[in-house]
C-alpha cells in the first residue's frame, strides 16, 4: 500500500481559496440529486429544517385540537363533541404540544444552529441525527394515525395510573401513548448526545467555554438535562406498557405496586422538560437582545450561571406537581422552597436582558418585539408560578383553569414567543431571505393581544372553581363570560399564527434576499452565507472574543489545512478550544433510515406482542451493523505505516 503523507492531499489555504475552494468543498459535502440521496442526507442543516417543519406541522395539529375544545367550551352545556372525544382531544393537544412540538422544535433549532454558531462544518454523529429525525417522525405519525383510526390515547398527556393502566384503559389507546413516548425519547436522547459532543469538541479555535455563545450554553445545559431526565419517562412508560402487556405490577397496589411511583417518575422527567423548552428560548432571547440592542449581553458570567442553576434546580422541584397527593409535610416545605428558588436565576436573566436593552441602542424590529412580548408575558406567568409554589394556594387551585392559565403563560409566553422571534431572526439562515417586517408586526401584535385575551380569563374561571379537563359545564356558575372570551381569543391567536405562517410562505418565495449578516449580528453563524453552503465555512474561523464579527470587522481570522477531498472536521480541546485532531465526518447513508424503520416495526408491534422485542433484535441489529460497517475503499489517510 502507498503511504500518503499529510502534504499530498488537497487542503484549503493559500493555494486553494475563493471560488475554486468552494467548488472543491461543494463536491465533497453537497447532496447528490434524487430521492435516495435526500433520504440518505446527513447535513445538519437539512435535518434541522425537516425537524423544524415537522414540529410546526404538529403545532398546527395540536392547535386545531385546542380550537375544537375552545369551541366546545364557548357556551355552557354545549353538545358539539362528546365527553370521550373531548378526553381524546385534550390528550392529543397536550401530548402533541409537549412531546411532538415544544421539545423537538428546540432540539431542531439547536441541530441547525449550534454547528454554525461554534464554527464547524458538521454536527457530531450526523447519521445519528438523521436516525433521530426519522424516529421522531415515526412517533408523531403513530400518534396521529391512531387518532384518525379512532384509537387515540384519552388519559391525558401525563397518562396517570390507574386511569391509564390495564384495569381502567382496556384496548390499545394507552399503549400507543406509551410507545409514542418511547419514539420521542429515543430521538431526543440522540440529539442530546450530538449537541453535547458538538459543543464540547467542535468549537472553533479560541472559542473557550467563557466565549461560548449563550444559545450554545443553553443548548448544552438542555442536552445534559435531557440525558439525565428522559430515561425517567422512558422507564416509566416501559413499566406502564409492561403492566398492560405482560402483567407486571409496578403500578398495581393490589400486588404491592404503587400508583404514585408513576407520578414520581413522570415528573422527574416532566418538570425538567419544562426547562428543556424554556432554556433554549432564553438562548434565543439573549442573541436577539444583543443584536437589536447593538451591544454585548450584560453580565455574561451571571447569565451562564443562571442557566446552569436553572438546570440543576429543575431536578429538585418535581414534587410540586404532587402537592395534592398527600406526601409528607417536610417534603412540601423543601419542594416549595426549591420551586420558589427558580425565580432567582430566572429573575437574574430578566434583569440582565432589560439592562442590556437599557444600556444599548435598541431597534424594535420584529424579533425584538417578540422578546418584549416574552418578557411581559413570562414575568406574569412566573408570578402565578411563585404563587402556586405555596402549598395552600396550590391545593386551592390544583386542577383548575388557574393552572392552565399559568402554564400557558410560561410555555407560550416563555417559549413560543421567543421561538417565533428566533424564527424571524434566523429566517435568513434557513432560507436566504428576510421575512416581511409589516406582516411580522401585525402578526406579533395580534398574537400578543389575543394571547392575553385567551389565557388571562382562565385565571378568573380557575379561581371561580372551574376544573380542568371537563368537556362541558352548567350555566349560572359565572364561568360563561371568561370561557367565551377565551374562545374568541383562541381564534384570534390562531389567526395571528396563521398570519405568521403566511409571512413565512410569502417570504420564502418573495422575501428580500438576505446577505450573510443582515442584522449586523456578532456570532459566527452570520459569517456563513445565507443559507450556508453545504460545508458551512470555507475556512475554520478563529475566535478571540465573545462577539467575533463585531471585533473583526476588517477580516475574520481563519485557519487553513483541513482536507477538502474528504469530509474532515477539526476537533478542539474541551475548555480552551485549542486545535487538537482532524477527524473525518461520516458520509451520507441510507442505513439511519433503515435502522429507524426497523426500530419502528419493533416499537409498533410491541404494542401487540412482547415477542416483538425479542424477534426485533435481529432486523435492528442487522440495520445497525450495516450502518457502522465501513464502506468503499480503505481511506488513504489515516493509515498505519
Amino acid at each position, binding site marked *: 500500500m502507498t503511504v500518503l503523507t*499529510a502534504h499530498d492531499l488537497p487542503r484549503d489555504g493559500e493555494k486553494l481559496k475563493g471560488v475554486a475552494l468552494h467548488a472543491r468543498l461543494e463536491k465533497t459535502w453537497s447532496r447528490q440529486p434524487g430521492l435516495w440521496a435526500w433520504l440518505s442526507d446527513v447535513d445538519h442543516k437539512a435535518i434541522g429544517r425537516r425537524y423544524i417543519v415537522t414540529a410546526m406541522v404538529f403545532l398546527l395539529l395540536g392547535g386545531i385540537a385546542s380550537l375544537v375544545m375552545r369551541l366546545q367550551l364557548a357556551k355552557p352545556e354545549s353538545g358539539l363533541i362528546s365527553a370521550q372525544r373531548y378526553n381524546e382531544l385534550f390528550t392529543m393537544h397536550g401530548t402533541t404540544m409537549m412531546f411532538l412540538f415544544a421539545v423537538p422544535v428546540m432540539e431542531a433549532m439547536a441541530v441547525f444552529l449550534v454547528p454554525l454558531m461554534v464554527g464547524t462544518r458538521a454536527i457530531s454523529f450526523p447519521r445519528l441525527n438523521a436516525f433521530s429525525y426519522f424516529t421522531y417522525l415515526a412517533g408523531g405519525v403513530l400518534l396521529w394515525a391512531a387518532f384518525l383510526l379512532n384509537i387515540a390515547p384519552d388519559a391525558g398527556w401525563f397518562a396517570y395510573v390507574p386511569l391509564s393502566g390495564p384495569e381502567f384503559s382496556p384496548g390499545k389507546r394507552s399503549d400507543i401513548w406509551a410507545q409514542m413516548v418511547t419514539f420521542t425519547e429515543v430521538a431526543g436522547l440522540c440529539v442530546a448526545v450530538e449537541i453535547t459532543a458538538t459543543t464540547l469538541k467542535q468549537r472553533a479555535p479560541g472559542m473557550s467555554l467563557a466565549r461560548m455563545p449563550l444559545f450554545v450554553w443553553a443548548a448544552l445545559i438542555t442536552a445534559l438535562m435531557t*440525558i439525565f431526565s428522559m430515561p425517567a419517562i422512558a422507564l416509566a412508560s416501559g413499566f406502564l406498557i409492561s403492566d398492560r402487556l405482560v402483567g407486571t405490577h*409496578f403500578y398495581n397496589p393490589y400486588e404491592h405496586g404503587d400508583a404514585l411511583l408513576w407520578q414520581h417518575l413522570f415528573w422527574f422527567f416532566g418538570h425538567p422538560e419544562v426547562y428543556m423548552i424554556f432554556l433554549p428560548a432564553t438562548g434565543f432571547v439573549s442573541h436577539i437582545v444583543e443584536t437589536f440592542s447593538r451591544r454585548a449581553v450584560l453580565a455574561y458570567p451571571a447569565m451562564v450561571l443562571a442557566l446552569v442553576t436553572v438546570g440543576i434546580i429543575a431536578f429538585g422541584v418535581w414534587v410540586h406537581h404532587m402537592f395534592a397527593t398527600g406526601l409528607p409535610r417536610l417534603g412540601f416545605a423543601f419542594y416549595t422552597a426549591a420551586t420558589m428558588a427558580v425565580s432567582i436565576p430566572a429573575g437574574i436573566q430578566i434583569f440582565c436582558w432589560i439592562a442590556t436593552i437599557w444600556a444599548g441602542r435598541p431597534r424594535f424590529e420584529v424579533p425584538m418585539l417578540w422578546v418584549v412580548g416574552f418578557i411581559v408575558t413570562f414575568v406574569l406567568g412566573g408570578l402565578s408560578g411563585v404563587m402556586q409554589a405555596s402549598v395552600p394556594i396550590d391545593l386551592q387551585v390544583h386542577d383548575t383553569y388557574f393552572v392552565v392559565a399559568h402554564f400557558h403563560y410560561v410555555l407560550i409566553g416563555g417559549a413560543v414567543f421567543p421561538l417565533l422571534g428566533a424564527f424571524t431572526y434566523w429566517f435568513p439562515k434557513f432560507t436566504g431571505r428576510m421575512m416581511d417586517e409589516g406582516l411580522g408586526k401585525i402578526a406579533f401584535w395580534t398574537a400578543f393581544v389575543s394571547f392575553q385575551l385567551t389565557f388571562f380569563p382562565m385565571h378568573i374561571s380557575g379561581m371561580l372553581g372551574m376544573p380542568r379537563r371537563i368537556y362541558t359545564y352548567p350555566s349560572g356558575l359565572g364561568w360563561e363570560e371568561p370561557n367565551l372570551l377565551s374562545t374568541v381569543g383562541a381564534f384570534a391567536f390562531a389567526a395571528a399564527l396563521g398570519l405568521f405562517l403566511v409571512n413565512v410562505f410569502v417570504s420564502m418565495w418573495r422575501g428580500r434576499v438576505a*446577505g450573510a449578516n443582515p442584522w449586523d449580528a456578532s456570532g459566527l453563524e452570520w459569517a456563513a452565507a445565507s443559507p450556508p453552503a453545504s460545508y458551512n465555512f470555507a475556512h475554520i474561523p478563529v475566535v478571540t472574543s465573545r462577539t467575533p464579527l463585531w471585533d473583526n470587522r476588517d477580516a475574520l481570522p481563519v485557519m487553513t489545512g483541513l482536507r477538502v477531498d474528504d469530509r474532515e472536521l477539526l476537533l478542539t480541546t474541551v475548555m480552551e478550544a485549542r486545535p487538537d485532531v482532524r477527524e473525518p465526518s461520516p458520509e451520507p447513508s441510507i442505513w439511519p433510515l433503515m435502522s429507524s424503520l426497523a426500530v419502528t416495526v419493533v416499537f409498533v408491534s410491541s404494542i401487540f406482542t412482547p415477542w416483538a422485542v425479542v424477534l426485533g433484535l435481529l432486523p435492528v441489529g442487522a440495520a445497525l451493523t450495516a450502518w457502522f460497517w465501513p464502506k468503499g475503499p480503505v481511506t488513504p489517510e*489515516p493509515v498505519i505505516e
Partner: protein
Amino acid sequence: MNMPVKFAGDLTELPTHAYGHRSLTWWGIIAFFAIEGTFFALAIATYFYLAGGEQSWPPAPFRPPSLLAGTLFTILIVASELPNTLLKRAAEKKDLRTVQKYLLAMSAVGFVLLVLRAFEFASLNVLWTDNAYGSILWALLFLHTTHIATDAGDTFVLTGLMFTRHAVEARRFVDVAENAMYWRFVWICWLPIYFLIYWLPRLIQ
C-alpha cells in the same frame, strides 16, 4: 463565507485520530454512559421505593434468588476485565494480531455470559407476574441483559471487522479501544444490581 478572511494558522500537521477524551466517539460513549447510568439509577430507585412498601424483602412467602448462576456470571464478568484491558492496550499500540486474539476471547466471554444470564432468569424464584417485587427483579435483570447483549453484539461485529481489509485503518483501533471502555461500564453497572438482586434480600431478611 462572504466576509474577508486572514489566515491565522494551519491545521495540516494535526493528527487524524486520537484515543480517549481527544476523540469524538469517546464523548458520544460518555454521553451514552450517562443515559444508561440514569436508567439503572432510576430502576434502582424504583427497587427501593417498592421495597419501602413491603413488610419484608423479599415479601413472604418468596425466597431470595438462588446464587449459583448469578455468582458464576459475576465472577466471569469481573475476570473478563483482564482480557479486556489487554485488548484495549493492544488496540492503543495498534497490534493487530493481539487485538484479533483478544477480540475472539471477548466474543466468547460475551456468548457464555448470555447463556449464564438465561439461567439467572430461571433462578430468581419469582415471576414478573407474581407481585411488584418480582416485576422489579425481572426489570433490573432485563435492563442489564439489553446492556450485555448490545455490547456483545458490538464485539461480535468488531471481531468480524478486524479480520477484514478495514483493519489497517487507525480509526478502527480507536473503535476497539472504545468498545473495551464500554465493556468496563457494563460490568461496573452489574455489581450494584447483583448486590440488590441476590444479596440485599438475604441481608435484611
